[in-house]
């Protein structure tokens, strides 16, 4: 009797072991891992991933931590990366990672249709990154302040997004460094909190943690739809309005384990995706699709457009640390 019970238990455990190993191996091999940003959560979870899964049967796991942390996680992987793709709000880490040998050059199927400011420079094998969506950098503020406060004479609390953790912080730094470093220093002096991502940044204004910040139009519209009390406009500095395109770009990890990685990137440029991006408050990169409802009407006469040369990432990156409070 005792031996019979032990034999049954051994068989149950052996079956459990076999089933568990098979399933875990299948999950590990069959899942596409995407490192991305919380700003894209709704666009990816409600539109892109379900449709990609329906079209290909591929499971997708989205990993949301800050861009800096994800880059470090990639570095820790050596030649055995966990992630297949990076979908981020700035190409800085893609440029930096390419220089370090972590990303592969590639070319999408609709290469010719993507405007030149939404594609990286050409390298052997294609491009380092392509933008699939964009959103204007927005000055977000407490509506009680009245008109859009001029950043040159800011005299209220500011939320300077963390430049080493958040892509939002990178855009804020680049804006001030390219327009007025003095205004940047002033904004930093008025900073009370450094949010670690674009969503936390807008929420900071909504919950009264600070009065003004630089965030993304798309994320601001998302929270406005949910009833957040914030106002926004293009950044204003010295009486001048600026258009800074925040470009959500895709990069492909070198040694990526999942063969569907390239298919996922191509999927982002399908009409069914590009035509629906504005539903999630971002803007399509391919021409001919509508802008998000409630978004800033563009193009706007008299606005200065700032596009960055991301290939100069070392210079861009060298300016980031001085915008860390207490850093």
């Amino acid at each position: 009797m005792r031996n019979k019970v032990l034999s049954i238990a051994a068989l149950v455990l052996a079956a459990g072991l076999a089933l568990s190993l098979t399933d875990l191996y299948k999950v590990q091999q069959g899942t596409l891992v995407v490192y991305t940003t919380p700003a894209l959560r709704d666009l990816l979870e409600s539109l892109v991933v379900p449709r990609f899964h329906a079209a290909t049967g591929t499971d997708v796991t989205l990993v949301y931590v800050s861009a800096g942390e994800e880059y470090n996680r990639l570095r820790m992987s050596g030649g055995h990366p966990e992630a297949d793709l990076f979908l981020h709000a700035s190409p800085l880490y893609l440029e930096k990672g390419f220089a370090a040998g972590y990303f592969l050059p590639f070319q999408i199927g609709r290469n010719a249709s993507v405007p030149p400011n939404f594609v990286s420079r050409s390298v052997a094998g294609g491009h380092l990154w392509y933008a699939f969506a964009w959103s204007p950098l927005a000055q977000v503020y407490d509506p009680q302040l009245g008109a859009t406060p001029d950043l040159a004479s800011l005299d209220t609390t500011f939320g300077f997004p963390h430049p080493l953790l958040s892509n939002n912080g990178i855009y804020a730094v680049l804006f001030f460094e390219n327009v007025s470093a003095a205004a940047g220093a002033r904004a930093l002096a008025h900073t009370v909190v450094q949010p670690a991502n674009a969503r936390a940044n807008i929420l900071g204004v909504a919950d009264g943690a600070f009065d003004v910040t630089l965030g993304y139009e798309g994320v601001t519209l998302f929270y406005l739809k949910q009833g957040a009390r914030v106002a926004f406009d293009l950044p204003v500095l010295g009486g001048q309005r600026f258009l800074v395109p925040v470009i959500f770009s895709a990069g492909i990890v070198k040694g990526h384990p999942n063969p569907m990685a390239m298919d996922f990137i191509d999927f982002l440029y399908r009409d069914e995706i590009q035509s629906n991006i504005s539903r999630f408050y971002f803007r399509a990169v391919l021409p001919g699709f509508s802008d998000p409802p409630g978004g800033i009407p563009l193009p706007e006469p008299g606005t200065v457009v700032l596009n960055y040369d991301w290939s100069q990432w070392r210079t861009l990156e060298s300016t980031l640390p001085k915008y860390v409070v207490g850093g």
Partner: protein
Amino acid sequence: MRWPFRRTALERTIWTVIVWFLFGLFVLGPLATVFAFSFTSSVLSGTGTFTLKWYGQLFSQPGLYGPLIRSFEIAVIVVVFQLLFGTLIAYSTVREKVLGAKTLDTLSNITIAVPSVVVGLALLSFYGPFGPFAAITQFLFGNPLSLTWTLWILVFAHMIETFPYMVRSMAAVLVKLDTHLESAARSLGANRLHVFLTITLPQLKPGLVAGSVLVLSRSIAEFGATIIVVSAVLKTAPIAIFTQAEAGSLELASAYSVVLMLVSFVAYLLMSRWLLRGETIA
């Protein structure tokens, strides 16, 4: 043991109130709150109503119920490996089959004292692309092997964390084992394997069951080492609870927690009742 106080009705009442109050404050209260939050529509709003929607979400979305399945799959693998490895170590130390048996016995408890996050970091360092394991495999096979983000580093983490529970459970049974039965069987001509399978192993059953139950529960609950070594696709339930709580979804995190508690409890009951009918856990 003699009761140190006179059992008057008043004393008994006071002790009952104090003990149950403290137990409620530190154990039952927090667990009951998790239970309540899992049925609340919105905790943060302060105006929550009764709802089952968090459980609905949990069991309808693969991204949410996946970590629960992962947790149990990994726990089963760890139990099987630990039955082999832990038994081997316990048998070797109690029967003093190896040199330094007493030292090994002492060292087998060391992971109880080491913080689990340190265990995770140690594994990541040793088996990672920049650690000794990669260097050794590079030297031996000409190709560095790294276990970072693989299933195996996760299984190793859980094995280290659960190792003392299996060894101690087995050792407790082994020291009480009647070796005369084995000697008698050997003197009647049975070989070592036959003696082990038919005489020793059945007597080890209480230790095997107790060790398995403890390893299963501990593996399902493991967090500290797991969060360091786990890959995104193999995320376990405790990691999912942490992620949800960090994202502000206390209700969903609570629903996860309730399911985890219930399943662990049922597994514990089933294993102990089914396999230990009429016997006590060592």
